[in-house]
């Protein structure tokens, strides 16, 4: 099952890559740099998805105390932090030629940066607590609080940036109708999601093997 996911994600990613360069046109205002927008939003989407999974798995763990739920939360947090870091990096790389600067506190980037720090805190907490059961419980609490906080973070950051500024920075890049832009984006979105599922499954399996090895 896990291996099937692996092959599926490889195929999907390859397809996404082909579409990003073969199907998608050269964008009129930004030039080819816009092609980064076929990886950056998918990475950001997975970053948030992974976080949602951490939250739900945490709730399930606290309700049922099933070790599998805790492993899922842990795995999703680890894979999530990788995707979040990449989302920030690709966003920054896109931003340099487009906005002229490596970093800007625009609403989207800031939110993702805060998400990144929350992930790091979660993993740090995991690493610091030796007792497995306590780590699972405490991380579940942290995961839930952080997830509840994210909508608040979103609004506050958005208002912080856009209330006295035109909201143009929050608009996603170029969705206006063109199918040749939409389809590569959607394919890559799906591909990265499958990749996420594959990596989480592998990581969770590894976690179970690690706990069994210690037993």
């Amino acid at each position: 099952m896990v291996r099937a996911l692996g092959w599926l994600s490889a195929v999907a990613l390859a397809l996404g890559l082909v579409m990003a360069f073969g199907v998608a046109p050269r964008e009129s205002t930004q030039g080819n740099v816009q092609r980064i927008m076929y990886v950056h939003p998918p990475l950001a989407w997975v970053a948030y998805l992974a976080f949602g999974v951490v939250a739900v798995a945490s709730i399930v763990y606290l309700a049922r105390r099933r070790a599998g739920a805790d492993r899922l939360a842990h795995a999703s947090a680890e894979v999530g932090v990788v995707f979040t870091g990449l989302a920030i990096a690709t966003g920054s790389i896109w931003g340099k030629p487009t906005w002229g600067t490596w970093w800007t506190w625009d609403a989207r980037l800031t939110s993702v940066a805060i998400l990144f720090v929350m992930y790091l805190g979660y993993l740090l907490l995991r690493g610091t607590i030796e007792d497995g059961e306590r780590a699972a419980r405490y991380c579940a609490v942290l995961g839930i609080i952080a997830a509840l906080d994210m909508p608040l973070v979103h609004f506050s950051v958005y208002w912080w940036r856009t209330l006295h500024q035109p909201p143009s920075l929050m608009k996603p890049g170029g969705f206006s109708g063109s199918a040749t832009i939409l389809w590569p984006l959607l394919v890559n979105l799906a591909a990265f999601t499958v990749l996420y599922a594959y990596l989480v499954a592998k990581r969770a399996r590894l976690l179970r093997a690690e706990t069994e090895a210690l037993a």
Partner: protein
Amino acid sequence: MSYARRAFVVAWKDLLVERRSKETLNALLFFALLLLFVFQFALGPDRERLAGVLPGVLWLGFILSGLLALGRTFLVEREHDCWEGLLLAPGDKSAIYVGKLAGNLALMAVVETLVLGLFVIFFDIDLARAFPGLPVVVALGTIGLAAVGTLFAAMTAHIRAREVLFPVLLLPVQVPVLLGTVKATEALLLGESLASVAHWIKLLAAADVVYIVAGLLLFDVILEG
């Protein structure tokens, strides 16, 4: 013992300990004073530049003092081997959370009043026009900080790296509170009405509700062991 009474007992015990030892409060007040000096030295004597960053600096002062105060929430229990007492407490343990939160709020109120007073003196702020709004904003922000801080203090109480981990975990979660309070304070200090920052007030209030409810529900989980 009823829930409210248990919460009250916890808060009262903490405040009594504090009143007798004055350990935390004195150190915090002194810390706040020092922060003022540090901010002044870091930002330079330029009056106008100070005026621009004042709301941010004020809340930095509140948050830094808050981190110190909140981090010590369970210090007494930990150092005097009373943690097990908390674990074995009968009934809904969230009463302990309420008690600790109330104690923290009282402590923060004293510190913040002093910090605000010092700011007025040292940075020559006209507080009068900020007035009905500013206490509201400060109260909402402090509740948000303390609500999560008390929970995380319990979580990090037994971790060796707690002095580092506590702020690291708390600060990202507090971003909405920080943004909301600074923006609202900024507007209020410029003389604008509370109504003009209504959206921030609503955000802070919503955050406070979320944090307190989460704290009430999740505190038991922390105190399982």
